[in-house]
């Protein structure tokens, strides 16, 4: 089957341009540092910490976005890294970049390919994928507080108000974005607050347990702390 050019969105195109503008020696240095890490790494935050020793923080975010995105593609289609690189290069070719941009890309593409094969990138991409491999994933949550007016028996004036709350979830599944609202009262909110505090404690305990066994941890969502 012929190799199909990878479709590249505008954001990915800008990301790839940013990566290709980096001096090859800096990328090589970042690669060497990550490859030299003795520990198994499964956390994007940990990878970022190592790469930021060689590259600017926003370049690291861009590079990791592309590496993890391409690893997801490789894993999903069971493609080899060289095949994925060739498909990516075909996709880039369709972008009609300037000669200089092509030259830049060519100067770093072999390092980029090495990154894609690096164990710490492979395991981090896999861990990230597993961290949100659920039927439904939460995208936003908020509590909306309303006042419902209570009218007089004659309906000619407002004699009071009921304060009520809605817990509104926005979530995503295979069909796209959806939402659901649940009525909750003050007691439910206090219960939720308690449950959240307990969940944070449980996360810490689970993380400490893994660390005490010498195993790397990735707490889903830790990058946003």
């Amino acid at each position: 089957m012929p190799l199909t050019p990878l479709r590249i969105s505008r954001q990915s195109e800008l990301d790839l341009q940013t990566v290709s503008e980096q001096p090859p020696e800096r990328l090589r240095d970042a690669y060497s540092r990550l490859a030299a890490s003795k520990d198994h790494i499964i956390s994007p935050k940990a990878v970022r910490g190592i790469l930021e020793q060689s590259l600017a923080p926003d370049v690291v975010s861009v590079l990791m976005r592309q590496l993890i995105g391409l690893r997801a593609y490789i894993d999903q289609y069971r493609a080899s890294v060289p095949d994925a690189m060739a498909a990516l290069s075909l996709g880039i070719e369709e972008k009609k970049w300037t000669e200089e941009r092509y030259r830049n890309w060519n100067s770093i593409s072999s390092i980029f390919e090495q990154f894609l094969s690096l164990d710490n990138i492979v395991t981090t991409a896999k861990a990230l994928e597993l961290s949100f491999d659920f039927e439904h994933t939460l995208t936003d949550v908020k509590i909306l507080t309303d006042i419902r007016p209570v009218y007089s028996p004659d309906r000619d004036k407002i004699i009071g108000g009921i304060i009520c709350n809605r817990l509104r979830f926005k979530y995503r599944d295979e069909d796209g974005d959806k939402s659901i609202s649940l009525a909750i009262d003050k007691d439910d909110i206090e219960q939720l607050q308690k449950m959240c505090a307990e969940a944070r404690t449980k996360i810490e305990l689970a993380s400490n347990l893994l660390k005490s066994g010498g195993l790397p941890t990735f707490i889903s969502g830790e990058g946003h702390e």
Partner: protein
Amino acid sequence: MTLVEAYAGADRDGPSQRALRIYKGGPTQKKGAPVRLSQDIGHDYLSVALLRKLNKELPSQRDRKFAAHFAKLDALLVDRNWDGCNEPPSALALNRARAVLHQLRADGLEPTRIVSSTEGGVAICFIRGKIYSDIECLNSEEILGVVSNRRDAPVVWEIDPSASGFARAAQRIREFLGETSDAYDAERKIG
């Protein structure tokens, strides 16, 4: 020479050359192995769900810098242990300060710190050497902008409580501080 040829040419007998042969129609996959390389995962190899997760796990430098300021606002909301001298910030003042902070993040203008205002409310402060500026979201429902070079009398103006009002205030403060709007864009370049 095409880009793929250039890419494959760097490694004539290696795996890249094999990829080029696949592109040209040569059968190189093992029998029975999946060879599907066409895409059906949305608009890109980065699916919407993965992109969303990545943006959360790998926040930009700008988001990371502003996270502490948003956390301070959260702390002001929760902390009700006031010393009795200052009036705690009202919910409206905190919400407006949050809206201002979102505008500042979008504009890449990072404050120095966020404090409760002695006049009752929230002050978002900018200090650059001897130059001082702030945006005060007050419990009195006013939003004030202040710029001062610490020599002359401070200049104070009222800020319209709207997105455009916040954007204009951010621009005025940026100009006063002598910062350019593309400072953050430069961070994407070589560090």
